[in-house]
């Protein structure tokens, strides 16, 4: 919440890619609670769009949020740093989901599941 309050006043628009990426990473780490190394899914759903505003296409962000909201996979109740970072890196590297090749990729399974969902294959 503290962070949320802080965020609107932070203009991240000026940051170049690498700087922003570090900031993005930091925002995950800052919001961890207690001894957890992961973030609650709901927190991620709220946080990511805020931070990634204007950095990613609207469509990508909203479909990801949708995916997280509807998934019943318990392993996604908490999101790891790896998954958090991968979503950003993946979105930068692969703007067109239809070109995604799961077999040759090393992205976390979360991304694979997300692509399946977004390209209309409900698993």
């Amino acid at each position, binding site marked *: 919440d503290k962070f949320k309050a802080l965020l609107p006043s932070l203009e991240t628009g000026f940051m170049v890619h690498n700087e922003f990426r570090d900031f993005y990473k930091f925002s995950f780490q800052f919001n961890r609670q207690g001894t957890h*190394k992961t973030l609650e899914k709901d927190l991620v759903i709220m946080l990511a769009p805020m931070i990634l505003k204007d950095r990613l296409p609207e469509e990508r962000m909203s479909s990801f949020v949708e995916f997280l909201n509807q998934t019943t996979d318990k392993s996604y109740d908490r999101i*790891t*740093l*790896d998954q958090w970072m991968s979503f950003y890196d993946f979105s930068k590297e692969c703007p067109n989901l239809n070109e995604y090749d*799961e*077999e*040759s*990729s090393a*992205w976390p399974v979360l991304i*694979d599941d997300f692509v399946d969902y977004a390209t209309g294959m409900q698993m």
Partner: protein
Amino acid sequence: MTDDNKIITLQDGWDNKIKSNAIDVLEDILDTGLKSGKFFSNKNYIEVYTVCYDMCTQRAPYNHSQQLYTRHGETIQAYLETKVLPAIQEKGSSGGVPLLEELKFRWENHTIMNKWYSKFFTYLDRFYVKHHSLPSLSQAGLTAFKTNIYEHVKVGAKDAIIELIDKERDGEIIKKDLILNTVKLYEAMGMGSLETYNNDLEAKLLESTREYYAKKRAEWIVTDSTPEYLIKAEQVLNEESNRVKEYLNTGTEPKLLKVVEEEVLEKVESALLEKEGSGCKVLLANDKSEDLQRMFKLFARLEDGLRPMAEIVQQFISSMGHEVLNQRQARLDAGEKDKNDDPTFVKALLALHEKYLGVIRTDFDGHSVFQKALKDAFVDFVNKNVGNYTNAEFMSTFCDRVLKSGGEKLNEAEVEDNLEKVVQLFSYLTEKDRFAEIYRTHLAKRLLNQRSTSTDAEKVMIAKLKMQCGTQFTAKLEGMLNDLAVGSDQKSEFDSKMREENLKIDFGVQVLTGGFWPTYLYPEVAVPPDMNRCLETFKDWHTKRHQQRKLKWVFSQGNATVKAVYGKKTYDLQVTTLQAIALNALNNGKTMTYTELKETLNLEDPILQPLMHSLSCGKYKVVSKSPSNKKILTTDKFVANSKFSCNMRKIRIPVAIVEASHNSKRVDEDRGASIEASIVRIMKARKTLKHQQLQAEVLSQLAFFKPNPRAIKKRIESLIEREYLERSEDDTNVYNYLA
């Protein structure tokens, strides 16, 4: 006798001595045939030889070596040109047998002539020829024949030979030695090499053979069934092989056979294999062993001949296997209960394997390409499960039947045979670890309940599995057997200790080494004092022997015999430990409610309910329940059944087991751990690796199951979380090992 002083002139020597006494005589004999005896008497021969000798050793200008050498050549040439060639051309004008016969005659003549001239002019060979590095006399003679005769007739002769051979192929009887002789001529014309024979005869023969069999093939493939065709092919190959032996040069055999194989077999292999009604598949389906053997032998000759055949065999076996799966499905569809034991199914699989193992051994000479086909076919369908249970489980329960007492009734040899066959089937499973886990559970039951037919049989099976999969795979199983062996060793020691203590109960303990055995439940049941004394005695004794070990009682296992006295009758009830403790609580006609029992015994519902059910609602109601329905409710009351009666003295009261489906979970957990261990091993050695390579190496390391790519990814992610690995900053496809 020659006059040493008299010089022989060329003219004189040649005309009067050599020509008249040797050359003319010889030519005459050759033309008209030998009248009697030898060509030349020794006396005549020596005379001519001497003249030649003299003429060559006379001092210059009377040394006539060169002229003699030249005249030798000219004489032969003239004879060939004027006498021999015309004769051949006349007699052999229409080719065929007459040509060959005349040629044979003339060639034989020439051989004789060449020999005699060499004999007469031997001295030339010794010195003049050598000194001037000229062809020897007989070589010159041969060359003369080649140039003057052979070159003119070689095509005609070749045609004649080929014509005869084709006739013989069509079934006519021909003059084989005529061909043989002519072949020898061609060979000789090579003068030390087979090139002439190869180019002038062999090559053309191969061509015409090819044409001949191409035609035959076109006919046969339409009219004949595959077995019929193959019989013809076999015959034809034998024929050609014999043909070479009879009248051709041995070097021709492989080339000739290759041509026949190409035309008769290779070019129509697919058509033969796939022929409607008689192709490979049909032969397999009808167990046409002889035809299959022939097919194998013939196609084995071709360079890649067996592969298409093996493909068909593989598909066939695969379809037979799927048929077995379908049969099982059909039984389930017809209403048969789906349980974890299906001996019919397993036996069908074993029979199928046995059958085609035999076919491969007998019909395909055990050739490796077919063994692989069998393996690939089985791997294809053996991993397809029908119904709720896996094939791994069926194989395991089948083993259980074979190994436990009261299962299949088999003698020792049959037991081993069955086990051997199941292990072969097992080798095709991808999920071998699942099999192992289920096998372990069954083994534990057999061992703990003494239901194993023979310890030797158990060892044999484990040894077979060890051979297939290595020591690690069978370590736990061996550990279990070992526990039992140790237990029986120590039993007598403990028994004497028991006697010392003079306890009223006959008591035995089996110690299990934790990691080897399946996981059991450890209900903390309240043990009655009599029993407890036994437990304590054992614990003391054991601790003295093994200070380091920690013991934990597994009350969910174990058996007891309870002596139950109902009125005048006494029974021996064979029950589990927990049942015994429950019965003990109800001793002396005591009534207890469910809740009271639960408290007194300290047992949870999932255990207590089936327990009480077995004593009061089963076949032998040793305990009465009120109300007397089949459900166990907390409000029920239990008391020993005073009206209990049975004809038998010894009664076994079974109880439903609570544990079973640990299996699957356990296997999945172990798999996760194996994958991770593998990833860490690989990354530690390589330090940095691309994702695809890591995945490939992991798959190649895992022998007992095949995880899908996402499963591997999940474990990678887990390791990233725990900071064993990290993603590379430069390339998202690459991982780095974190020391």
